[in-house]
C-alpha cells in the first residue's frame, strides 16, 4: 500500500479494469491528447492528467480522443454501452452537461425502462465538478442534484482517493449508467490506497466519524470539511456522526435515518446551490421518515442561490466552510 493522489487512484482503477476487461474503453477530449499534432503523443492525459498513461498502455483503439462535440461522443458512449462495450467517457467539466444532457438522461437513463428491462447500458461518465479553482461560473458548478433527480442514472461522489478507486471500479463493473463526480480541487489529495483492485458497493454510506449528538451528512469534498469540524467539536464535547453517502443515487436512506434516530439532530452539507439540492433531499427524507427522532430543526449548509463568482474573494465566501458547518452544528446542538 502506498500513498496515492485522488488523480492516481482514479487512473489506477481505470487501468486495472482495462486490463481485466477488454470491453472497457476510455474516451474524451484530449484524454490522451496530441492527436494529429506534431509533438508528443499522450500529451495531456485529460485536462488535469487523470487519464495520462492509459493510451500508451492500451492504445488509441481503447483510449479515444474526441472532437469537441459532447452530444456526439457522450451519445456514442451511450450507444457503445448498449451494444457491448463498457465506455468510461469524460465530460470534462460537468458544467458542459447543457450541450449533451439529452443523451444522458433521456437516452442512457431511460433505455432500460422504456425498453421493458431488455437494455443494459454499462456506462461511466467521469466529470469534474466543484468550486475553489477560480474557474468561474461555467466551470465550477456541482450539478449532482440534477443528475440525482433523473431515474435510471446512478450518481457517485467519492470523498477521498481510497473511495475514488473502489467506487470507480464498482462504477465500471456496474451495469447501469453511472455519473462519477470528481471534485477538481481534490486531485492532489493523498492517502493510502491499496495497489490491488477492490470495489466499494453503491448505496452503502460510510460513517467516517461516530458521535452521539449530531449527524452531519456531507458530499464529496464536504466530507473532509465535516470531519474537520467533527474533530474540533469533539474537544468541545459535541459528538458528531459524519455520513458520507458515497452515492446520491442509489441513496443509503437506511443508514442516514438510523444515524438521525441516534443523534436526533441533522446538518446537511452540500456544496451545490440550495434549491432542489441534495441538502433539501436529505432534509426532506428525514423530515418525512425520522421526524419523531428529531430534537431540533434540520440545518442545511450550502452555497447561496447564485452562480459561482470568479473573484477568489467571492468564491471563498461562496463555498461552505468549516466555520459555517461548525456554526450549524453548534446551533442544532443547542450550543451556539
Amino acid at each position, binding site marked *: 500500500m502506498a500513498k496515492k493522489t485522488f488523480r492516481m487512484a482514479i487512473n489506477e482503477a481505470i487501468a486495472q479494469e482495462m486490463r481485466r476487461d477488454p470491453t472497457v474503453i476510455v474516451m474524451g477530449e484530449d484524454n490522451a491528447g496530441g492527436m494529429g499534432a506534431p509533438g508528443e503523443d499522450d500529451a495531456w492525459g485529460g485536462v488535469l492528467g487523470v487519464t495520462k498513461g492509459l493510451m500508451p498502455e492500451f492504445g488509441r483503439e481503447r483510449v479515444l480522443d*474526441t472532437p469537441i462535440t459532447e452530444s*456526439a461522443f457522450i*451519445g456514442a458512449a451511450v450507444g457503445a454501452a448498449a451494444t457491448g462495450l463498457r465506455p468510461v467517457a469524460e465530460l470534462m467539466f460537468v458544467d458542459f452537461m447543457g450541450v449533451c444532457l439529452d*443523451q444522458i438522461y433521456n437516452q442512457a437513463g431511460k433505455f432500460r425502462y*422504456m425498453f*421493458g428491462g431488455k437494455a443494459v447500458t454499462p456506462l461511466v461518465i467521469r466529470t469534474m465538478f466543484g468550486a475553489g479553482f477560480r474557474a468561474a461560473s461555467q466551470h465550477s458548478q456541482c450539478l449532482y442534484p440534477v443528475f440525482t433527480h433523473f431515474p435510471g442514472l446512478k450518481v457517485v461522489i467519492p470523498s477521498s482517493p481510497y473511495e475514488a478507486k473502489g467506487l470507480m471500479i464498482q462504477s465500471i463493473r456496474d451495469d447501469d449508467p453511472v455519473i462519477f463526480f470528481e471534485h477538481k480541487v481534490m486531485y492532489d489529495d493523498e492517502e493510502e490506497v491499496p495497489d490491488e483492485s477492490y470495489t466499494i458497493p453503491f448505496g452503502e454510506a460510510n460513517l467516517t466519524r461516530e458521535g452521539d449528538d449530531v449527524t452531519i451528512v456531507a458530499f464529496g469534498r464536504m466530507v473532509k470539511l465535516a470531519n474537520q469540524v467533527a474533530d474540533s467539536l469533539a474537544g468541545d464535547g459535541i459528538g458528531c456522526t459524519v455520513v458520507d453517502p458515497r452515492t446520491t443515487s442509489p441513496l443509503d436512506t437506511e443508514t442516514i435515518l438510523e444515524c438521525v434516530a441516534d443523534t436526533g439532530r441533522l446538518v446537511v452539507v452540500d456544496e451545490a446551490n440550495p434549491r432542489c439540492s441534495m441538502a433539501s433531499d436529505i432534509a426532506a427524507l428525514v423530515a418525512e421518515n425520522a421526524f419523531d427522532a428529531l430534537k431540533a430543526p434540520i440545518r442545511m449548509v450550502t452555497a447561496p442561490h447564485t452562480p459561482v463568482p470568479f473573484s477568489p474573494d467571492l468564491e471563498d465566501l461562496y463555498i461552505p466552510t468549516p466555520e459555517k458547518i461548525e456554526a450549524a452544528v453548534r446551533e442544532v446542538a443547542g450550543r451556539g
Partner: protein
Amino acid sequence: MQLSRGMQLSREELLRAYRGMRTIRDFEERVHDEFAAGTIPGFVHLYAGEEASAIGVCLDLEDKDRIASTHRGHGHCIAKGCDVTGMMMEIYGRRDGLCGGKGGSMHIADLAKGMMGANGIVGGGPPLVCGAALSAKTLKTGGVAVGFVGDGGSNQGTTLESYNLARVWNLPAVFVVEDNGYAESTASGWAVAGDQLKRAEAFGMPGRRVDGHDFFEVYDAAKEAIDRARAGDGPSLIHVCLNRYYGHFEGDAMTYRGEGEVDRLRAERDSLALFRKRVSEAGLIESGQLDDIDREVALIIDGAVAASKAAPAPTLADLTTDVYVSY
C-alpha cells in the same frame, strides 16, 4: 449506368423485400384505423408511404448490424425484424408488448435484433449510431450501424456532430436522411439550408440521393454505403426523398399540405405499386405470389391487433421495475 444490384437479388430476397414493405403498409394503415376508432392511445407517427426506405436499407442487415430510428419508427422496426405482434402490443401498452408496454410507439426497441430504438428526441439517434459503430469496430464484429433521421432531424446539432465524429473516428456507419418534405407542418425546403449531399461532402463523407419510393434505388445506395462501411472505409450519407401518406402524427389535419397532395402521392408514388410494376415488368415474380403475401400479411396484422386488444395490461408491480439492472 451500372446494373441495379437490387434487380439481381434472388427471388426469395425480393419476396422478403415485398413482404416487408407490405407488412409496414398494412401495419400502419391498421394503426391509423384503430387510432381513429379510439382503441390506441398516445402520439403515433405513421411510416406509410416510406416503406421502400426502411426495407431497402435494412434488407441485407444482420442482427449484429444495428439501426437507430426516429419517432416514426414502426417501419424501421419491422424492417429490422421486430416481431409484429410484439410491436402492436407495445403500441397498445400491453404487458406482453416488445417493451412490456412501458415504451409505446415512440420507444419500440429490440436490441437482440439490432434495433436500438425508435426515439422521441429528434436527432437522438445519430450519436447512438456512432456508439454502435464504435462497438462493431472495437469488437471487430464486422457489423455496421445505420442511423435514420428525418429532414427535420437532419438540422439538429446532434446529427451534424455525429457526421463529424463518424468521419474522424472512421466508423462503419451509414446516415440515412429520410426527407419526406415536412417536419411537422414545416417544409424541408424552407428549414433545411443548403443541401444534404453537400453536407455529407462538407464532413468528408460520400453522399447519394435516391428516390425513396423506389426500393431498388434505395437498396443500391444502401448496399454501396454498407459495403463501404464494412470494408472499413468509413461513413456515408444517403438522402432519401419520399413522402408520408398520413399526418405528422395521428390527429394532424394536414392543412399545410397541397390540395389533393396525398391522393396524388398514393396514386403515383406508391412504393409497393412501383415494386410490383418493376418486378413484373422484369419478369422476376408473378403477381399471384405477391397477392399471396398480401393475404398472409393481412392475416398477421389482424391477428396482432386482435391479440393486442385481448392482452393484459401491466400492473402496479411493473411500475417500478426495470429502472436499473441492479438496485
